[in-house]
C-alpha cells in the first residue's frame, strides 16, 4: 500500500523507477565494529576528533551539527559494509556512512538521533553520471559477490540517507549529513526535491505539517 503511494507520486511527477521496491525495503546503513582494539581505537579517535572539530562558538547552541564532515570527506562510493578501522583511512564515503557518522556525533552530544532515508528527484543527466561514478570508482572487495552492490541511483529518483533529530515537543529536524544542511518540510517537484522520507525514530514526530511514524515512508 505504501509502495503504491510512493509509486503514484513518482508516476505523476517523474515516471516509473525500477528499484523502488528495493529502496523502500533497504535497511539504513551502520558502521561495522570488529569488537577488537582496531575498531575501538578508530572509533574513539573519531569521536575525540569530532569533539575538537565542533565550532567553539556554536557549541553553546542546542544543535551543533557536524557540518565539518562534508569538508573532511568526499562524497562517493565506498566499500560496503565498512568498519571503523577501515573508515578512518578513507577519504571518500557514501551518504550512508555520512549519516552513520553524524548519528554517532549527535549521540555523543547528547541528542536523540535516528536513522532516516529519503527519496530525492534529480534529472537523468545527474543520475547517469552517478551510475557511472559508482560503476568505475566503487572499491572492490575480494569477498564481494556480483549483484551485491546496492542500486541507489534510479533514472530520475535517488535513494539517500539522512539523520532525524528528535527535538523537544515531538518535533523532528532532518539533517543532510552528506552536504551539511537541513531539509525543509516543503512540497516541491524538480531538481533535488525531497519526495518521500522514512524515519526510524520509534516515536511519532511532527515535521512541518507531516507526521513521521517509525518505518513508514511519508510522501511530501
Amino acid at each position: 500500500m505504501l509502495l503504491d503511494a510512493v509509486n503514484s507520486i513518482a508516476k505523476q511527477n517523474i515516471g516509473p523507477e525500477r528499484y523502488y521496491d528495493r529502496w523502500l525495503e533497504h535497511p539504513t546503513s551502520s558502521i561495522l565494529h570488529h569488537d577488537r582494539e582496531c575498531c575501538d581505537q578508530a572509533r574513539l579517535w573519531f569521536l575525540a576528533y569530532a569533539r575538537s572539530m565542533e565550532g567553539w562558538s556554536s557549541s553553546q547552541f542546542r544543535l551543533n551539527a557536524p557540518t565539518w564532515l562534508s569538508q573532511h570527506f568526499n562524497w562517493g562510493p565506498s566499500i560496503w559494509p565498512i568498519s571503523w578501522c577501515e573508515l578512518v583511512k578513507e577519504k571518500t564515503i557514501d551518504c550512508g556512512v555520512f549519516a552513520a557518522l553524524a548519528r554517532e556525533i549527535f549521540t555523543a552530544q547528547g541528542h536523540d538521533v535516528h536513522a532516516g532515508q529519503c527519496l530525492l528527484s534529480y534529472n537523468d543527466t545527474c543520475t547517469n553520471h552517478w551510475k557511472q561514478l559508482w560503476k568505475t570508482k566503487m572499491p572492490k572487495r575480494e569477498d564481494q559477490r556480483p549483484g551485491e552492490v546496492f542500486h541507489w541511483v534510479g533514472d530520475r529518483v535517488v535513494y539517500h540517507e539522512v539523520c532525524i533529530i528528535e527535538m523537544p515537543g515531538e518535533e523532528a529536524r532532518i539533517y543532510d549529513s552528506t552536504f551539511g544542511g537541513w531539509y525543509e518540510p516543503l512540497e516541491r517537484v524538480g531538481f533535488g526535491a525531497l519526495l518521500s522520507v522514512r524515519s526510524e525514530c520509534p516515536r511519532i514526530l511532527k515535521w512541518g505539517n507531516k507526521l513521521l511514524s517509525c518505518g513508514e515512508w511519508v510522501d511530501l
Partner: protein
Amino acid sequence: MSLKLESQMNKKIYICGMHSGQNPSAGVGIARSIRKAFPNLPIVGVDYWQGSSGLHDESVDEVLIFPQWKQIDRTRHLAQIRKILDDGNLWISALDVEVYWLAQNFGGHPNLLVPSGSALKMTAKPNVEAFTSLGFKVPENISAFLSDVEVHSFLRQIGWQCWLKGPYHDAKRISSWEVFEKARENMQKEWKTSHLFLQRHKIGNEESICFAAYHGELVSAVHMEKRLITPEGKTWAGHVTPVSPELLDGLKTVLRRLEWSGGGEIEYTRDPDGTKWIIECNPRFPAWIYGSALVGLNLPGRLVARALNLPIIETKSLYPFFTRVVQEVVAKEAIGIPMPPDPSLTPWPAGGQKGKAGPMQSSLIPPLRETMELRTLDSIDEEREAIAVRIPEHVPAPYSAEIDMVTESFDGETPTRIHLHSWTMSRFQELLDGIKPTKMFSPEIRIGYSIKTCPTTEHISKAQKSGFYMECISQLEIERALNSGAQPNQIILNGPGKFWPLTRPPVTGLHMLFADSIEELNRVLEIPNIAECIGIRICLPKLQSRFGVHVDEYEPFQELIASIKKIKGKAKLGLHFHMPSWIIGVNRWKDAFQSVLTWCEAIEQLTHVPIEHLDLGGGFYPTDLVGLNFRWIQEMVKMSLPRVDGIYFEPGRSLTQEGEIVVSRVLSVRRDTDKKVSEIVVDACVAELPLIQSYSHRIFFRPAANEGPTSEFRVLEKGAAKILGRVCMESDILSAGMKLPEDISIGDKIIFADAGAYERSMSYAFGRG
C-alpha cells in the same frame, strides 16, 4: 479610467541610487517592482554618477543625473527636489547617505518617502533601539575608541570573532590585534568619523524583515531568508515569506511611533537556537526587493499605491524563492558609458589582490561615499547597552601610582627599563589568593612559573617562595632554577629543545617531563629515572601550532597510544595542552580544554594507563588567568579523569607582563598646519618594545619639569597623534594614535607600561653604535 486616476498616473516616481554592480543599490529593484505593479507610471532614475549602470535598465523611462556631490549647490539642490515633490511626484531614495542628508536638511514632505532624522536616530547602529521591543537582541559591542586595554580584553573574551563597523554599511572582520588596528585606522580615514564600534560576530543564518510605511502607517512587510550570499555579504538568492501576525502588529506600533516613511529593512542573524540578533536597520528598501515583488509581495508597488491612492493587483508565486541573474543589456545612448580612466591613474593593488591586466575595478567605480558628504548622528555616542563581556579597569590606581613614584625622580639615560616591584608582588599574591579557595577540593591546582618569560632572580625567588614549580624549556633553565635553590623534583621540563645543550648530561629526577613528539617520548622512556611523571603534549585539530603531537591524523594517534602503553610501570602519565588564551580568547580556550578532556578519556580507555597529571600550560593575559573559574576546571577534570592528582598552570606573562615599564624621552615634536601635535619621535623603539604592535600597552606621560596644570603625570588617552620610534625602520611606530598634551616638548617622558615578560626577554640591542 476616472479623471483623478488618470492624473495620478501622470505622476512621476523619482528613484535615487541606481547602480547595479557587485554591491548594488536598490534603485533598479524598486524601479522594476513599481513597473511590475504599474506598467504605465513614469519612472525617473536618479543618481550622482554617470556610470550608475541601472539607469540603463528597461524599467527606467527618464534619467536625472546630478553632478558629483562636491559640485552641488545645496540650496539649489534642495529647491529642485522640493519643486519635484510639490508637483505631486514621489521621491524614493536608495542611497543611505542621501537618506541621512534629506532627513537632516529637508524637513518632511508628503511626497518624500524617506524616514525622518529622529526615526534614523532610533534605528541607528549598534543598538537599533526602536526594534528591541520586537524581540530582537543586540550582539555585545563596544566603541572601537575605548582604551586599547579595554578593546583588547573585549576581543580576547569573544575569541577574536568580531566585526568593526562604522555608522553606515561598512563592516570589517577582525581576527587579531594587528588586523584591528589597521582596520580601525583605515575605516576612520575612509569615513572621517570616530563613530566606529566593535560588535561580536553571531553565528546563524541571515534573514531580514523588509517593510514599507507611509507617514507612520505600515503598508506592508515581508520576511526573507538569505539562501545565497556573495563574499561581500549581499543577497544573491532568497526565500520570501509573509511576516507573522504578531511581528506585523509590533512593527505597526513601532513604525507609527517613528512616523516612518518609505522603505526599510531590519537585517538580523537567527542563531541555531532561534534567537534573532539584529545586525542593522537600513533606512531604505534593500537591493533584493524585486525578488519579493516577483513572488507576490510587492512592497514598492504597495507603497506607491498607498501614496498615490491607486489600486494594486498581485499574484502569488507557488515557489516563493528568487535568485539574482547577471545580465548584459544594451546601454542607452542618451546616458552613455563613462570614459575609461587614464592607465597612469591606476595604482598597483597591494596585498596580492586578484585581477587582470587592466585597472582595478575600484578605481573605475567610485564608491558612493566619495561622492557624498558625511554627517554623523549623535546617537552612536549614546550609552551602549550593558555588555556581558567583562572589561577590566583600564588603569588601576596602585599601578598608576607606582609608575608615578618610580619615574618621578628618574633622571637617568633613556630608554630604560624599570621594574615595578610592588605591582609584580601583587600579581603573585592575586594568583595565590585566586587558587586558595580551590585548596580544599581535588584535584589540586598547581602553578609552574615559566622561567623563559622573565628569568630574573627576583621573579624566580618570588615564584619559589609562593610554592610554585619551575617550568623550564632547556637544561640551562634547569640549571638556573637549581642555582636559585629549586630541587629537581620541583621542575617541569617542556618544549622542543629541552635537552639543549647536548654537551651536558640531562638532569634527572624531575617532577614532570612532557615530550614534544612521539620520537622524543620513546627516547625519554629509555632514560632511567628522568622524571616522576612522563607525559606528552598534544596539539588539537584546528588549532595551528608547531608543538606537540598532532592528533588530527589517525596514524600519529595510533603511534601515540602504542608509546603511552610503554609508560606503564616506568612513570606516572601526564598530558600537556598549551594554547595561549591570549591568542585564541578565553571562551575558545575553555572549549579547547573540554575537548582535551575528551582526548584524555580516549587515551585512558585505549591504553589502560590513568592520566595523573594534567598540564594546561600558560599564555594567559594578566587579567584572564585570575578570572578563570578554577573550581569549574576542577569539577570537569574530576568528572572525566578521576585519577588526576594535579592540574597545572604555567603562568609567566600574566605575572610579569605588567611589572615593567620602558621610560623614554621625546626627541622631536611635529605639528600639522593647524599647529596641532601630529607626531612625536621618542628615544625608545621596537628593539626595546619588540611586541608593541601585537598587544595593547598603556602609555603614560610625564613632563621634563613638573610645572603647569596641564603637564602632570597621567595616562594618555586615544587620539590622533602618532608616537614614532627612534630607528630608521618603517615599522618603528610605537602608537598609531594618542592624545598628547599640546605643550609637549623635547625631553618630556613617554612611559610604556606592560613592557615586562616577552617584551623584555625578546628585546634586543639595535642602533646603539
